[in-house]
């Protein structure tokens, strides 16, 4: 197969028509010459017509060949040839070491097979090639072939899905940036469908993909687990979801202690209520019996266990706040007391407090003075009238069908660092900071529908426990290695073995090992970081080879299931020899032959 690097020059090959036209029109040109011995000339042409025609044809073909060879050489052709050796190649091997590749098939992890295929490819590379390795977590490794082989041998399965598509894109970028005539990306993957959700554009590189033959084994996994609610006061529940083709036995632990056991059938949710004796931030897990894929048999969660927060509702907060608190007390998620104050902003004198905008605009000045006094970096602006939809911020409790009719725009002070929990008309409507939550409308039906909506009580319970409790804190969920934002006030991360890792930056990479980790502030736990693999990683269904090839949009994509054929395919097509020099040599030879033939006939005639 021949490729042309500058195919536009092929147009110049049309000049080959010139010798052809001259050949065809040759007998129609020339002068009229009187010559008595025409009979000899006619006889010569008659007797030598075949030889003359052949010679003219050869001359014409040689001239056409010269033109075609030069035009083809200008188009910079390269020939793919099979056999030993290949053109210098920039080869990037993408090794899919995501969690799913640790599944055991025929007594060995799939990753062993993938490592063997990747090693074969690297070993087949020549010293003129440049080789890189990219793993599913996107890490690019370069170096000598032996170093790459060592990296492949030591590549361990990730605890999560990684991002194979992103790794492949990186691999194509690395290969394309190399100044070598051939650029190839070799993907060795288990072909998990969820890892290749959509086509990947890989530019002008050639892509070879390998996936093991056959289907993946059935898998059981805990795909979801969590405390409901996160703060148990002190009772709560563990909610979990198990992916199983039939039934599965599970175990729920809390701080290593078995909390419950049970059996769950397919698509049946798990819900276990408990009122454990532990207090404070606690780690728990939902576990299944081990199967072929061990990494997703355990799923972690974290819960805060302790007494419900004590809350006092001032009359200025309105009757709906009092009613909601009563509901929370009845559900043991709050208790009456003087810990947290819910009141109109102008009446609050201490934190923690849920401050609501005053129902009387006259009290706006007093409210802002109270905010100033409490150190809250927000101010209430002039009242605005008109019904406006309220939108909850991402990650907050949903606020369905909530509108604000009378609202005071919340204006931040310079350097304010706080959370916006909801907006109205694009402006902050509920904001939160250390020890306070501020609402931009009064909790009355004529100012907002919020207090009469169903979302109000759960929202209030969440705010009281998560943001206003003395030991308030949040549970953050992350996948292994993902980047998470450091919670306000957290200065260290406590590992399962008790070690502590300082958190100097505003963001941190989630630990690679699944588990429940705790944020610390001054040595005290203030929240949790729960690291679990992606639920989608437990779905081991594979793409068929053609579908996988369709996901890889390079210059040319080939997928193989047989390891030997895979390696052979790469180096059967990889060699690409530039044909410029042979074509120029052929043109030169044709030129010499043409000159010799033309000169020979002239010499013979002379």
């Amino acid at each position, binding site marked *: 197969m021949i490729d042309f690097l500058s195919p536009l020059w092929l147009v110049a090959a049309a000049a080959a028509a010139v010798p052809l036209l001259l050949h065809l029109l*040759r*007998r129609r*040109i*020339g*002068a*009229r*010459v*009187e*010559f*008595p*011995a*025409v*009979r*000899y*000339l*006619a*006889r*010569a*042409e008659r*007797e*030598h017509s075949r*030889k*003359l025609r052949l*010679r*003219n044809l050869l001359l014409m073909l040689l001239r056409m060949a010269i033109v075609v060879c030069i035009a083809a050489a200008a188009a910079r052709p390269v020939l793919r040839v099979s056999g030993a050796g290949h053109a210098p190649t920039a080869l990037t091997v993408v090794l899919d070491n995501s969690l799913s590749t640790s599944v055991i098939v025929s007594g060995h992890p799939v990753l062993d097979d993938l490592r063997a295929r990747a090693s074969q490819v690297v070993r087949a590379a020549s010293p003129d090639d440049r080789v890189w390795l990219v793993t599913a977590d996107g890490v690019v490794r370069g170096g000598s072939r032996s170093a790459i082989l060592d990296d492949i041998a030591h590549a361990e399965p990730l605890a999560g899905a990684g991002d194979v598509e992103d790794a492949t894109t990186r691999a194509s970028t690395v290969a394309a940036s190399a100044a070598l005539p051939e650029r190839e990306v070799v993907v060795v993957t288990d072909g998990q469908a969820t890892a290749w959700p959509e086509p990947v554009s890989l530019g002008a590189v050639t892509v070879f993909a390998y996936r093991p033959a056959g289907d993946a084994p059935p898998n059981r996994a805990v795909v979801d687990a969590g405390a409901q609610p996160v703060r148990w006061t002190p009772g709560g529940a563990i909610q979990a979801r198990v992916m199983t083709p039939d039934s599965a036995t599970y175990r729920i632990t809390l701080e290593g202690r078995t909390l419950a056991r049970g059996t769950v059938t397919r698509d049946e949710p798990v819900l276990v209520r408990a009122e454990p004796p532990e207090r404070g931030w606690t780690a728990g897990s939902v576990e299944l019996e081990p199967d072929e894929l061990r990494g997703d048999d355990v799923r972690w969660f974290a819960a805060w266990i302790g007494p419900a927060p004590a809350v006092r509702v001032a009359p200025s907060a309105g009757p709906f706040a009092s009613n909601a608190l009563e509901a929370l007390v009845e559900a043991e998620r709050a208790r009456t007391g003087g810990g947290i104050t819910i009141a109109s902003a102008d009446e609050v004198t201490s934190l923690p407090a849920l401050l609501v905008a005053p129902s009387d605009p006259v009290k706006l000045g007093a409210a802002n003075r109270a905010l100033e006094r409490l150190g809250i970096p927000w101010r209430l602006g002039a009242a605005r009238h008109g019904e406006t939809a309220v939108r909850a911020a991402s990650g907050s409790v949903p606020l369905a069908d909530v509108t604000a009719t009378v609202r005071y725009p919340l204006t931040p002070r310079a350097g304010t660092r706080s959370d916006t929990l909801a907006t109205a008309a694009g402006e902050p409507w509920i904001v939160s900071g250390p020890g306070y939550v501020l609402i931009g409308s009064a909790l009355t039906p004529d100012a907002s529908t919020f207090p009469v909506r169903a979302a109000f009580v759960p929202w209030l319970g969440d705010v009281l426990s998560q943001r206003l409790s003395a030991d308030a804190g949040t549970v953050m969920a992350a996948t292994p290695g993902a980047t998470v934002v450091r919670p306000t006030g957290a200065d260290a991360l406590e590992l399962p073995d008790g070690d502590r890792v300082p958190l100097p930056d505003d963001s941190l990479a989630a630990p690679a090992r699944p588990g429940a980790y705790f944020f610390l502030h001054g040595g005290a736990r203030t929240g949790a970081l729960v690291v679990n693999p992606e639920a989608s990683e437990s779905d081991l269904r594979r793409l068929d080879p053609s579908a996988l090839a369709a996901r890889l949009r390079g210059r040319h994509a080939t997928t193989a299931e047989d390891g030997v054929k895979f390696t052979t395919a790469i180096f059967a097509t990889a060699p690409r020899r530039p044909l410029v020099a042979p074509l120029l040599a052929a043109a030169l030879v044709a030129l010499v032959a043409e000159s010799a033939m*033309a000169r020979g*006939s*002239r010499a*013979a*005639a*002379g």
Partner: protein
Amino acid sequence: MSTTRPDLLDPSTIAALGRIEIVARWIVDGFLTGLHRSPRKGFSVEFAEHRPYLPGDELRYVDWKIAARADKWVVKQYEEETNLRATIVLDVSRSMAWRGDESRLTKLAYAERLAAALALLFLRQRDAVGLVRFDDAVRSAVPPRVRTGQWQRIVAALDDPGAGRASFAPVALEQAGRLIVRRGMIVLISDLLMDPADVISRVRALRHAGHHVAVLHVMDPAERDLPARGDALFVDPESEIEVPAASAEVRAAYRETVDRALGEWRDALAGVGAAYEVITTDAPFGVPLRRAFAVRQRLP
């Protein structure tokens, strides 16, 4: 000095020096300067030697003085003078009026001067010489004579313009045969651009009649080697036949074909006992004269 002999000069150079008869005289004089007298003996007026009498010899040639003195019969032998009647058959067709280069004579001009010189040479040998000019028919004929003024008549006939049409030699050859009463010699000077079969047939008839035939094939050098004219349409001036050709491409084949054709003429004429010589118009006149004279000298 051989280089000063007119018969060895360049034909076009010497032809430019004068009329045919003058040029022909120079040529023959030069030619004879380098040639011994004919060794042939005859019964003429100039005594040469004695030989024994043989039965059948005419008694008037017996030397009676020696017979009386030595009782031995011998006969006197004399230089032969008029023992051959020759006719020059000259092709004056249109193809003969061609030359491949301005610096050369046309084939006809060359042939006319050669014919004049040949006639003069024969007449100097006391041979009777005649002339037949032809193209597609006989255009003029001078019967062979040895008398004074015969050469002038031949030269005058050569001055005739001629019709310059296509050539057809058999009729002329037949006419030449009729002009010679007893056995003689016929010299055909032509470019032979005609059907060989007709010519050979006629020559064979002449040979059967006892005549000796010599064919001088006159060619322009450009007819031996095709001139470099590039891609051209070559036209036969007689038949108007047109042949397109690229001279550079067919030159080798043309040369090969011409050589083969000349070989065919040579073989065919040799087959009927005729002499054949190829003369190119750039050759000094001495060359064809020597060849023709050699033929003449071989005759009995």
